[in-house]
């Protein structure tokens, strides 16, 4: 029930966002209509940050003996998959925005490169999740990898402040926390877009977690059957 409600809420808010961003908001004085890409590029990046943050927290909860439960490992993996999808989307949207405004699809700029690094770190993490070993061993290995990969998230965020980049500084979460947007609709739509994508994240990770639970149930059964078969095989020659 909650799942259906979440899905409907995120669908409706994304539809409202599309109307706000494509029709209601005025174009930027300098960039014109291309600036409308901001209302998908920024929340997409936000969703990726959020997803990897959840993966990191879930990994800590799995590593800490007092809170350890298989559930945290599944949540960490589910959230990372959603994060990878949206990191890829952020890169593509940034490229589409960079072409008309900067004059280039891609630059080996600190923000762009660290984001690409983030993408590959978590693709590597997802591959690591599918390697063998016992659930405990794999869980530990992946949780540690998730924490190492997460170190890149603050590097991505502050890259625009630390290095000289073609990419602009943050409009909202800059060091002075000074919202650099004029009028009502621009900042409103940006905030709304972040809320809409947060709902979308909740919907997607919830669904992905259900899949993870189903997969684990199947794995457990396969293991059980393999053990039984071996036991039978051992009994026969004796």
């Amino acid at each position, binding site marked *: 029930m909650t799942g259906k409600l979440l899905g409907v809420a995120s669908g409706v808010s994304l539809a409202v966002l599309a109307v706000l961003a494509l029709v209601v908001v005025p*174009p930027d004085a300098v960039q014109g209509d291309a600036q409308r890409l901001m209302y998908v590029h920024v929340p997409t990046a936000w969703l990726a940050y959020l997803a990897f943050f959840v993966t990191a927290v879930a990994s800590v909860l799995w590593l800490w003996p007092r809170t350890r439960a298989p559930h945290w490992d599944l949540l960490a993996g589910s959230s990372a998959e959603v994060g990878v999808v949206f990191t890829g989307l952020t890169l593509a949207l940034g490229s589409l925005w960079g072409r008309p405004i900067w*004059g280039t699809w891609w630059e080996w700029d600190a923000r762009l490169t660290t984001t690409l690094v983030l993408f*590959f770190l978590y693709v590597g993490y997802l591959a690591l999740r*599918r390697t063998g070993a016992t659930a405990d061993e794999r869980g530990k290995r992946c949780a540690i990898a998730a924490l190492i990969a997460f170190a890149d998230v603050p590097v991505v965020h502050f890259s625009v402040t630390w290095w000289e980049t073609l990419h602009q500084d943050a409009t909202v979460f800059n060091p002075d926390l000074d919202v650099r947007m004029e009028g009502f609709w621009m900042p409103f739509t940006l905030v709304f877009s972040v809320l809409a994508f947060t709902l979308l994240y909740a919907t997607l990770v919830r669904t992905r977690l259900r899949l993870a639970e189903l997969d684990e149930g199947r794995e457990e059964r396969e293991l059980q059957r393999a053990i039984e078969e071996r036991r039978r095989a051992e009994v026969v020659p004796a």
Partner: protein
Amino acid sequence: MARRPRARYVAVAVACLVAVVVMIRLMADNTVFLEPVSEAVAKRDEQGSRAFRMGGSVVPGSIRETGDDGRDIRFQLTEGGVVADVAFSGSPPDLFTDCAPVVVEGNWEGTTFVSDELLIKHGNEYEPPSDTAAQECPEEPEGVR
């Protein structure tokens, strides 16, 4: 369970790690140093013909097309009260106009900066279009230094 798929996933994980190292090295190698106009001009003699990036804002009214095909453009960049002549060949982005915050990649040839790559470094400020078009550049573009 087959061993094969596991080995494949390990290979993917390792390949990703290698890709990360390569990308960091690419960034370190390809990050051409960005100099604001004032520093680029001050260091003109020691730069020689070495390629670097220069950042500043376009001096209003300085843009002139010298070729028929619109690919050869001369203009001036300013920053910190210093002005530099730039000769650019290529197609500039739409936002290349008076006062635009520009990054050009190239090298000095005498007192002219010769470039074939021009990028716009846009700031993080947004506003709806206003009726009063500014004639003077509002301020030094942020981020070029």
